[in-house]
């Protein structure tokens, strides 16, 4: 397979690194959550790509079609679950950010550390 044929995997790796970098390097708590979301989304693309077969169709039984190629539906189902988990994680994270803003008056990590001293 050529490098271009692996385009989706390159995209997944790129998004993964962008998300991971944002998560580590940014001091703003909202930006950290955004980074986490991008990081998780890259995994969704990775999974969906795995289930795709060239020329594959939706996995609905075709009458008399013996040589029909079906794409694997399971990665989609798994990722549907993972998306729900991702939404829940963001919700908990963002509500924590609200509480932190109420308690500290800021959502910048370095300012929170100064406050805590």
């Amino acid at each position, binding site marked *: 397979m050529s490098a271009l044929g692996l385009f989706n995997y390159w995209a997944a790796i790129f998004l993964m690194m962008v998300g991971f970098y944002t998560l580590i390097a940014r001091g703003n708590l909202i930006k950290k959550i955004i980074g986490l979301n991008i990081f998780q989304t890259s995994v969704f693309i990775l999974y969906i790509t795995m289930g795709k077969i060239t020329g594959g169709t939706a996995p609905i039984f075709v009458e008399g079609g013996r040589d029909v190629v079906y794409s694997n539906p399971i990665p989609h189902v798994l990722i549907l679950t993972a998306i729900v988990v991702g939404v829940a994680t963001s919700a908990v*994270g963002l509500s*924590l950010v609200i509480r932190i803003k109420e308690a500290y008056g800021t959502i910048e990590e370095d300012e929170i550390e100064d406050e805590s001293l």
Partner: protein
Amino acid sequence: MSHHLPVLLVVVPLVAAPVIALLNRPRISWAVAVAVTLWVLYAALALLSQTMVDGAIHYALGGWVAPYGIEYVVDPVNAWVIVIVALIGALVTPYARMSVEREISEDRIPLFYAAFILCLTGLLGIAVTGDVFNVFVFLEISSLSAYALIALGKDRRALTASFQYLIMGSVGATFIVIGIGLMYVMTGTLNMADLANRLPEVASTRTIPVAFTFLTVGITLKLALFPLHLWLPNAYTYAPSAVTAFLASTATKVAVYLLLRFFFTIFGVTFSFDVMQLDRILMPLALVAILTMSLVAIYQENVKRLLAYSSIAQIGYIVLGISLASVLGLTAGILHLFNHALMKGALFMSMGCVMYRVGSVRLERMGGLGRAMPWTMAAFVVGGLSLIGAPLTVGFISKWYLVQAALEQGMWPVAGVVLLGSLLALMYVWKVIEVAYFREVDPELGITEAPLSLLAPTWVLALSNVYFGIDASRTVGIATRAAELLLGVLS
């Protein structure tokens, strides 16, 4: 009904959690939570005794046969972990009533119990399932509710601790999902037993070692193995006392179980330790964890933080036993899983009693507590002795097996580090005992003994430290059986 026990173990608390939230009365919510945890304990013990007699129990969810459907499998390894989680849950919930009334505002108490039972559900689910993606789902159920529980702490630093845990925990969980996905793409299955059959065929590809690496990093982050432990000290220090006692004794233990399951059952001991040479990375990290984290614990002024660092060191002991990859080493690790839950449960619960009466667990506020709260501090001493590894306590049993396992492979320096770790534990436990027993109590504060409903669960755990330290035949028997099963010595 007993046929459906494996799934009821998860479904009952899962359904009870929203009911507890909807009842919305602190006392009633608490009563339902206690009933649920007691039922879970009964189910866990029934499963353990059943699996010790009949071997592994397989349960196909909705009648869909594995590997197509999700399968729950109970064998001595996870029955053991389920019993640990259920036992601590059944002791912490009665304890929580008074502790939580003091530490959490009244309108949030029903939600606290809902989150608590959800966390219990997640931990039990991870242990009982035989499907790797199901593991991830339950992992997130337990983690998300744990973040909420930690954020309920009185101190505002509980919020930042929870946020930090959320970020690191989610990264860990995502790493685990990547690992699971890469395994799925090579084998086309998510069932653990099926994976174990199909992985050897594709083990020589590059994808499987990458999957293995992602899983290792993700799981060790969840179990707080040095140097991925950064989320743990703050989370344990600022969480409400009951939550600390519960999470310290169960959450990391379930993560250790995942480590065992993935490395021994799914990848197999040959791949994990001969091909990937996992012991070369796990053992040094475990040894560093034991030494550095015990040293850091000595310098802590907040006793909950001190115990949190000690927890990271104790996780080092468990991982050390696993990294030896022998029957004795694994037995020591699995034994310490249970024993550490007993000792840290007792210690954190006694700190919860101190928190209830004194309102702080900083050392400078604890002077003379040995006289003001004799029963609380006596429980701390018993737990502390167990932590050090004094004879007649469970700590001694696990260290005995660990040293034996190290010597069996001729690793004298490793045995030395284990003993040195005990010495360091003596130093940090003594630091608390010195303040509590050899300083004068301030009579103006009028501190009295903690109420019975806090003391009773604390002492149940403290006494079981002694009981299983004197008669270890049952625990050692189960741990040995689990170790043999994981190593494939016995089928």
